[in-house]
């Protein structure tokens, strides 16, 4: 592990038995786990290269218990790491040695399905997919669909602002949540938004979404649901050059078409996926696009032919169009299994998550190829082409000394390259611990200070999920100081009217 976490508080560790007893008084029975063997499943999340046993795990099942646990930790100065299903790919739920791991896994109930207002009110431990399943009979679904959707929890989705292959057209989590109940570290329970399209006042829902567990613990979420499109069809289009595929993506959007999904894979990813699921992917192309159009048949058929023409114009070497649900699902099967497929051809892999302007794709891929040579590590690229979100998978072997460090350095270089090309460090996986130390590549100290001041408004002692997102922690008192520059200026040199 190359990431430094905040130093453990020995005084807190010394009081461990008393802390466990106090937590047991709030959450009875099996809800408090303190035996090392039983805490093992909580040592890491989806970023499995990082492991750390927590001081103690607590699994409350009511908001009131969450509130009392947090209030206790607040008063005792104990750090808290919230956790949903533990599928974070950036280490957002990585425990702290001197911290309480607060799991929301028992919050598994959908509280209300309100079809007239097109919302579902749910507890945070419900999985993303379970929400869609609960409303499927009525023809509805919840749009964001991260690839971990069978396991990831909606509370975690809110904390990470999760995306998915359909977010180009239907938005990320932040565009699909209307309200929540959160518990602040002080134990205060706050309701934000609800079934209305907008809450009044500052958009606190917007700031909590994607805050990576640093601002509060989510105990209820209100999401909006949509009617399923009448139909969906997909095209599989191959290109002899990555540039041509990139041009095709730009031209589709330039023509005013926003597909339901538009994914790209490069040759190594195509080969790995094809060997794994036999989706019928062409093995002689450099880039493959999977483009899905959804809506009424009459619209989908028309757009399919427009997209096909655009692809031909960009020099596509093959194009297949799905003629059944089975065939559409097969097209997707390879893409959806791309990560495990790559897992089969390499002992380990690192999944990166930068976003670039779409037009910079050929440049980014060329840079990644150069870096691959420089580091002597293979890379396979899958890419949410529609919104410029890259997922380079860096292949390495953790058993070879130094190779994991090399892979991490390679990944950091890719993310630096994304920022240089006008993009950002993370499109959907979050900063967590993984990209924490790269934040200064994208933000100045002033930018980061402003973000940390906001953290102070929620958690002035910095007890919630410390060590994530921000490379340097400042005291709130220091951040809040106003520096008056130059005394009483009289607005010199400005035109007045």
């Amino acid at each position, binding site marked *: 592990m190359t990431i430094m976490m905040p130093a453990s508080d020995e005084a807190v560790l010394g009081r461990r038995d008393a802390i466990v007893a106090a937590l047991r008084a709030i959450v009875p029975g099996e809800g408090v786990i303190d035996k090392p063997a039983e805490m093992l499943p909580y040592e890491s999340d989806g970023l499995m290269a990082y492991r750390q046993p927590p001081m103690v795990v607590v699994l409350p099942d009511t908001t009131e218990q969450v509130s009392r646990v947090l209030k206790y930790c607040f008063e005792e100065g104990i750090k808290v790491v919230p956790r949903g299903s533990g599928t974070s790919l950036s280490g957002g739920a990585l425990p702290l040695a001197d911290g309480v791991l607060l799991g929301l896994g028992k919050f598994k109930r959908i509280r209300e399905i309100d079809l007239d207002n097109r919302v579902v009110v749910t507890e945070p431990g419900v999985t993303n997919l379970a929400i869609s399943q609960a409303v499927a009979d009525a023809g509805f679904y919840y749009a964001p669909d991260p690839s971990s959707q069978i396991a990831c929890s909606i509370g975690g989705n809110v904390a990470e*602002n999760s995306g998915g292959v359909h977010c180009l057209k239907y938005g990320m989590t932040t565009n699909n949540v209307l309200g929540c109940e959160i518990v602040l570290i002080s134990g205060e329970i706050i309701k934000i938004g609800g079934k*209305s399209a907008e809450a009044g*006042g*500052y958009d606190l829902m917007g700031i909590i979404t994607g805050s990576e567990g640093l601002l509060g613990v989510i105990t209820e979420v209100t999401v909006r649901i949509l009617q399923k499109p009448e139909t969906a069809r997909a095209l599989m289009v191959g290109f002899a050059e990555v540039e041509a595929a990139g041009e095709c993506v730009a031209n589709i959007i*330039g023509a005013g078409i926003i597909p339901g999904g538009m994914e790209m894979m490069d040759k190594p990813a195509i080969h790995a996926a094809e060997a794994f699921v036999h989706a019928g992917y062409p093995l002689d192309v450099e880039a493959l696009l999977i483009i899905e159009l959804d809506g009424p048949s009459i619209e989908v058929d028309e*757009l399919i032919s427009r997209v096909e023409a655009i692809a031909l114009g960009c020099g596509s070497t093959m194009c297949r169009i799905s003629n059944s649900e089975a065939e559409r699902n097969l097209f997707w099967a390879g893409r959806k299994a791309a990560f495990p497929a790559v897992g089969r051809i390499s002992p380990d892999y690192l999944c990166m998550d930068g976003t670039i302007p779409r037009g910079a794709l050929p440049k980014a891929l060329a840079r990644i190829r150069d870096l691959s040579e420089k580091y002597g590590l293979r890379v396979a690229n899958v890419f949410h082409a529609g919104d*410029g979100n890259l997922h380079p998978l860096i292949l390495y072997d953790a058993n070879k000394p130094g190779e994991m460090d090399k892979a991490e350095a390679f990944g950091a270089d890719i993310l630096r390259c994304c920022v240089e090309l006008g993009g950002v460090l*993370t499109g959907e996986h979050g900063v967590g611990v993984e990209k924490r130390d790269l934040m200064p590549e994208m933000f100045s100290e002033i930018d980061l200070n402003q973000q940390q001041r906001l953290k102070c*408004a929620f958690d002035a002692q910095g007890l919630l999920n410390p060590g994530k997102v921000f490379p340097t922690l400042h005291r709130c008192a220091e951040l809040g100081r*106003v520096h008056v520059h130059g005394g009483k200026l009289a607005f010199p040199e400005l035109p007045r009217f």
Partner: protein
Amino acid sequence: MDTLKVRDAGDVEQVVRSALASEQPLEIIGHGSKRLIGQPMATNALLDLSALNAVTAYEPNELIITVQAGAPLADVLSLIDSRNQQFAFEPINTSRLLGGPDVGTIGGMIGAGLAGPRRIKAGGARDHLLGAHAVSGFGDSFKAGGKVVKNVTGYDLCKLLAGSWGTLAVMTEVTLKVMPRPESERTLALRGLDDVAANRAMTAALGSPFDVSGAAHVPNSAFRAAGESALGDLGSPQQAVTLLRLEGITASAVHRAAALGKVLAPFGAAEILEDAASAAVWSSVRDVEPFAAAGTLGAWPVWRIVCPPASGGALGQALARDTGGDVLYDWGGGLIWAALPPKADAQAALVRARVNAVGGHATLLRASELVRRNVDVFHPQQSGLAGLSERVRHSFDPKIILNRGRLTRGAVA
């Protein structure tokens, strides 16, 4: 009053730092088109952003535009329209509702965050603000977000800036998402429904798979005020009309209009408005033309009520009945514009009690300065939420230099 016309972000920093030093709050304006919204402020200097009006970059294929905050909204709209693109959230033009010249800036559009009919499908201003450069109340320029459509790096400060009425930071440049303008539109118009039935029809339409992008209802009483507008011209006067919009490629819009007509058959036969006729009606709904300042209800205070959509019909009907006012519904019932006969408190107590009962919020968007002095313009929040919001504000502007007093009553300059 001093007007400080800034030329660049450096000027903004200087002005805010000077204001901090002299503890003088600033009013932040672009064109000043929305100065009549909010609690009356007691600032004594204007920070005028209208000279920061350049389009920094427009990249249609990336679906983004970067513009300075003082850029005229009308110019930016015609620029993106020339490439068949639009701001999908349909920003409201408040000039008719408030009276005054037809102006406004991009910064004002984001700061107010007032979205039009397509909000039900495309989201609001907050969903389209990808990045911003702004100067905080500390006098520091900072960056929020980025210039790509998909980004979760750090806190999403853009969400806070949108709809903050200039109270957190002075935006100097923003990057916005643009979307393709639909090829065609069709609007189904149902006649003669009362508010509750109309609410049910809109709920049925929005619960259908036909991708409705606008759902509004104009009760018959509101037509007496509609006057010379596309809504006023809409067929036989004095009959309520319920409007449902479908957009997309022509074949699809036509197909869905027919299919939705069948779903709505229990509510009556629908007329269909095409393209230009449809667009004119929706721009009239968006800008709340029946309650225009120059119209017959121009002197009445206007509330903007946001509520759970399926509660809208009953809420609006009761408000109109009990106050003798007129209402107009958008967002499938989730947005109610209510013009109420003038009273000293603009009927705030009654409005807020009714709105609280269904879980919504009400903003007194138009009222005289005297009324706004005596009424909470923005919906009062519960104490925990209000306290948190205040701490959030302090994290950007600890001395409350920016638009002091605009959001809450009783703040003294």
